[in-house]
């Protein structure tokens, strides 16, 4: 919107700065001024299409959503969004008086705190094993570990639902071979959430693995040899040489995976609808349900709570994993 008026405005003051100096100098700085202006104009032309879409479909909705969370939308006509009544933080107060929201927050917290470290550890272990252990067929392993990442969550949900089917599913068949009588998994309040944690680790460790594998391969061989000459064992070499070099990559994957996990939604939505007995109800699913029931204000408030949690987790991860120096 406002971008249209901006091109070229960037450096107009430069013209004045040339002042009454010698003419060569002046010509030079004027030319540099036009070059800069040309550059700024090009930059805004390149930026304008993105920023227009971004303003319409990102910034506007973000602000609108914040306003919605502070209003009572029950009686409002959303086609004229300005005609609503502000009620301050009432929606947030109502949110935190709702036991179901706390259940959803607790489930989300358990999911993130268990699944995130497991995903990072499994991805890192797979990367190290693949880097050390496998020369031939490495591509086969890489594709196999990455396959779940590129699979549609709906397809994943459908397949796992049939895998976990108590009587005709593969999981309980295999458990039966070991004499274990498998539970009803998704219909059991004790197992539904852990199953989704396992699914999440299975689905996402491939991303961590690929980034870590690239990181491992960029560790200079000479560094490892020098450490070996200094008498460092394999374990020491990993923690003292390799791991510090992997830290930026680990931070990136921890942050992005963490953001994704805090919005944990698709699996419970498709597989359990949040049940049984709210045992897989996540914070985003709670917000979505509010949206589905027409409580747009509550949905917005809940999603802003999740947003705050995401910011908190990200800041925490930067504190924990940033380079010490």
């Amino acid at each position, binding site marked *: 919107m406002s971008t249209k008026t901006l091109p070229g405005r960037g450096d107009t003051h430069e013209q004045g700065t040339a002042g009454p100096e010698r003419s060569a100098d002046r010509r030079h700085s004027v030319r540099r001024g036009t070059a800069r202006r040309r550059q700024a104009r090009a930059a805004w032309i390149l930026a304008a299409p993105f920023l227009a879409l971004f303003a319409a479909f*990102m910034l506007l909705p973000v602000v609108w959503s914040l306003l919605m969370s502070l209003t009572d939308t029950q009686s409002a006509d959303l086609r004229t969004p300005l005609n609503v009544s502000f009620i301050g933080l009432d929606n947030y107060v109502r949110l935190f008086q709702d036991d179901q929201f706390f259940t959803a927050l607790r489930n989300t917290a358990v999911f993130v705190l268990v699944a995130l470290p497991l995903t990072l550890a499994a991805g890192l272990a797979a990367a190290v094993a693949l880097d050390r252990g496998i020369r031939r067929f490495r591509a086969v392993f890489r594709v196999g570990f990455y396959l779940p990442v590129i699979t549609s969550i709906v397809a994943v949900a459908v*397949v796992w639902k049939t895998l976990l089917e108590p009587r005709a599913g593969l999981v309980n068949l295999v458990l039966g071979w070991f004499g274990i009588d498998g539970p009803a998994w998704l219909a059991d309040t004790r197992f539904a959430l852990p199953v989704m944690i396992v699914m999440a680790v299975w689905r996402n460790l491939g991303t961590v693995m690929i980034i870590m594998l690239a990181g491992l391969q960029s560790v200079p061989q000479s560094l490892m040899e020098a450490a070996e000459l200094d008498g460092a064992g394999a374990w020491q070499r990993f923690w003292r040489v390799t791991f510090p070099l992997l830290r930026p990559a680990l931070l990136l994957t921890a942050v992005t995976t963490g953001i994704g996990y805090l919005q944990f939604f698709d699996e419970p939505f498709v597989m359990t609808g949040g049940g049984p007995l709210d045992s897989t109800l996540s914070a985003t699913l709670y917000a979505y349900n509010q949206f589905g029931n027409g409580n747009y204000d509550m949905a917005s408030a809940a999603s802003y709570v999740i947003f705050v949690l995401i910011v908190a987790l990200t800041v925490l991860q930067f504190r924990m994993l940033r380079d010490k120096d």
Partner: protein
Amino acid sequence: MSTLSTLRTAHPGTDRALRRRHIRRTWGHPWLFVPLAGALLLMIAPFLWMLSGSFKPEADIRRVPPVLIPTAPTTANYGELFSTLDFTSMFANSVIVALAVTAGNLIFCSMLGYALAKLEFRGQRAVFLLVMGTLMIPGLVTFVPLYVLVANMQLTGSLLGLILPFLAGPFGVFLMRQFISTLPDELIDAARVDGCRELAIFGRIILPLTKPALATLGIITFLGSWNNFLWPLVVAQNESQYTLPVGLALASSGQSFTRFGILLAGAVVVLLPVMIVFLLFQRQFVAGIATTGLK
């Protein structure tokens, strides 16, 4: 060969050492192969189950305990998928939406990415921080107003409503900016000295050099759009706008469990195109992910 045989006669023990080194160089550590192969089997077991289930006749599907290999493999599930669920038009919708979204992101994100990485303009830092800041905002925050917005634009009845909100995302800007800033400045300066115009520098010099990053962004965006579920589920109003995941999800919730042969066939159809795309561009993809992750 001759050195090997001389060594062998001189030091009988080195033969084994040499062989071990040879094995290590070509195979790596054999003892790690076993746990990794086991892990690989666990990773792909659901896919094998999906594939076998999609070819199972009704009789095998109802069998307790289940069979792993279909007794009489059949393609009936696939046939029924396309005849009764109209997977053909859903497939077409998924392709159209994914291609449009991918094209939009490649164009708009590389343009802004270049401006942020290599051009100087006032407000650069503010634009960068603003765009990057939204990376952390959960999709659900924008979901409700976006829905109202798209509904007000009367786009809920067309594919455009599925495409428009996703044409330009912040992740693409991040990826393109990261990549383009690794290109040498001298290249751009030289072009300027030669009298190349600013926009031509982007089109003729930068864009051809960013192919690896464009490939990565293209694959990520295509996969993301292909697998996108929630937005099309809510916005698509009738079956003519359903994408594959929406059709599959609705089929799985509507029908009883005994139809799972058809659902698994549907899962195969949803997966197959992205698998082909991934296998074709695997190398560029991995290289691109690595650059974003490490820089």
